[in-house]
């Protein structure tokens, strides 16, 4: 797998002595600061912006922690996303750790470009903006149901944060919403860092069987939805296979669920604890777009990548990364880099360059569904602020189960009351 240790380049920053095993990827937030990335990142950015980490199988990869370096790596296609390439740092990856039936996010151009462009129009800004009223309607219905439970303890994840993106992506893909419990359970298992190999493989097989059945049903009766269009416009003329449609379905379902749901939960909790900002957003609702960018930067929920493998020797910030070596990009560290974001640990909903964040990644693999995620977050957060101004956590914050065990950070549950 990953050759190591590499011969240090003349300008290499000091890294751990070759005899000592490299540390693991930092994942725990500082004690009492659940919204902050692991404190180790701040030291690494200054002292060793490209350092070696050990992956669970004992192989090593580079960990990039500075904004400029992470943009340089993710923006350079000589750093490959192809999980089948020798040296790709697969160990410790969760949902996408398979090399079989991989979706286009695990591929390089030209295949990546060809497949991604089959679905880009579905998520373009004007298409997503046209869905805003429907997203608002779904959100209002869920809020109506919550209002009936005033004075009780409600899990905001279950009542709102998860159903909104789940309903929206089900609608877009043409998946029966009644199936949501199946794929929520399975994607939860797949994205966990702590489930065992057997449980994960069994969940992967079950999800695959479910998706296979779903796509077969769609082939028999393709509807006016993303899967239906992929079948009639791409699969029928022979551009892609049944298995490719299954891979699209799996990728879009998983990506469309957990990410936005966790951003909703964390954002709602942050604003319950920051009354001044919440009041300001209520008084000036036009600030919501910038606020969502800042919340994306601040929370940076992707905690296990993105990952790449170098296809040739490449120097990044004076450090030579050799062909065949893996790289893990620490998105939460980039988004708190003081070289780019002034006072980076502060939440500032009027931060002028908030949208420079790399919460959606960077380069040609940057999140396909980002316009949709933005509209969902804008609608849900603005609606919560307006309709539930008195909402507060129902338990002390240190009793909220945060997801440092998952590839996507957030709250497992978020008990609230009002």
């Amino acid at each position: 797998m990953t050759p190591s240790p590499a011969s240090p380049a003349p300008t290499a920053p000091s890294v751990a002595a070759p005899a000592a095993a490299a540390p693991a990827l930092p994942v725990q937030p500082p004690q009492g600061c659940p919204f902050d990335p692991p404190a180790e990142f701040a030291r690494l950015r200054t002292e060793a912006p490209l350092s070696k980490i050990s992956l669970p199988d004992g192989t090593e990869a580079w960990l990039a922690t500075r904004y400029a370096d992470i943009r340089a790596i993710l923006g350079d296609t000589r750093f490959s996303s192809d999980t089948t390439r020798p040296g790709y740092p697969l160990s410790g990856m969760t949902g996408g750790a398979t090399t079989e039936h991989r979706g286009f996010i695990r591929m390089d151009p030209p295949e990546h470009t060809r497949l991604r462009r089959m679905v880009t129009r579905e998520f373009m800004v004007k298409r997503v903006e046209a869905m805003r009223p429907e997203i608002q309607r779904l959100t209002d219905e869920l809020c109506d149901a919550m209002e009936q439970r005033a004075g009780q303890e409600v899990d905001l994840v279950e009542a709102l944060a998860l159903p909104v993106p789940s309903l929206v992506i089900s609608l877009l893909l043409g998946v029966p919403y009644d199936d949501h419990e199946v794929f929520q359970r399975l994607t939860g298992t797949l994205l966990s860092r702590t489930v065992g190999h057997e449980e994960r493989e069994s969940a992967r097989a079950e999800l695959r069987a479910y998706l296979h059945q779903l796509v077969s049903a769609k082939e028999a009766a393709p509807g006016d939805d993303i899967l239906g269009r992929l079948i009639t416009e791409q699969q029928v003329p022979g551009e892609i296979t049944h298995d490719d449609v299954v891979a699209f379905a799996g990728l879009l379902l998983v990506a469309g669920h957990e990410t936005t749901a966790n951003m909703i939960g964390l954002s709602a909790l942050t604003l319950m604890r920051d009354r001044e900002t919440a009041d300001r957003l209520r008084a000036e609702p036009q600030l919501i777009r910038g606020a969502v960018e800042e919340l994306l930067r601040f929370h940076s929920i992707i905690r296990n990548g993105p990952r790449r493998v170098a296809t040739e020797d490449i120097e990044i910030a004076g450090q030579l990364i050799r062909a065949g070596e893996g790289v893990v990009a620490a998105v939460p560290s980039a988004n708190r880099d003081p070289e780019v974001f002034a006072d980076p640990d502060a939440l500032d909903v009027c931060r002028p360059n908030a949208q420079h964040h790399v919460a959606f990644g960077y380069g040609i693999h940057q999140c396909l569904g980002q316009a949709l995620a933005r509209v969902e977050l804008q609608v849900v957060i603005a609606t919560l602020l307006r309709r539930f101004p008195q909402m507060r956590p129902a338990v002390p914050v240190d009793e909220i189960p945060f997801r440092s065990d998952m590839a996507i950070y957030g709250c497992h549950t978020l008990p609230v009351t009002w």
Partner: protein
Amino acid sequence: MNITLDADKCCAAGQCVLVAPEVFDQRDEDGIVVLLDAAPPADQHDAVREAAAICPAAVIQVHE
């Protein structure tokens, strides 16, 4: 200000449309960037520079 695009590299993230909708659009068939105004007026310049800075595929070149 004069803008050129390398649309072959575009990954249809749509950030330019969010930042400078009077200058950039996405084509209906695949979301790839379309330039609406290659020489936009001064009041658009900041937005265009921002779009170029955040474009994930470095598609937008601004000549000033």
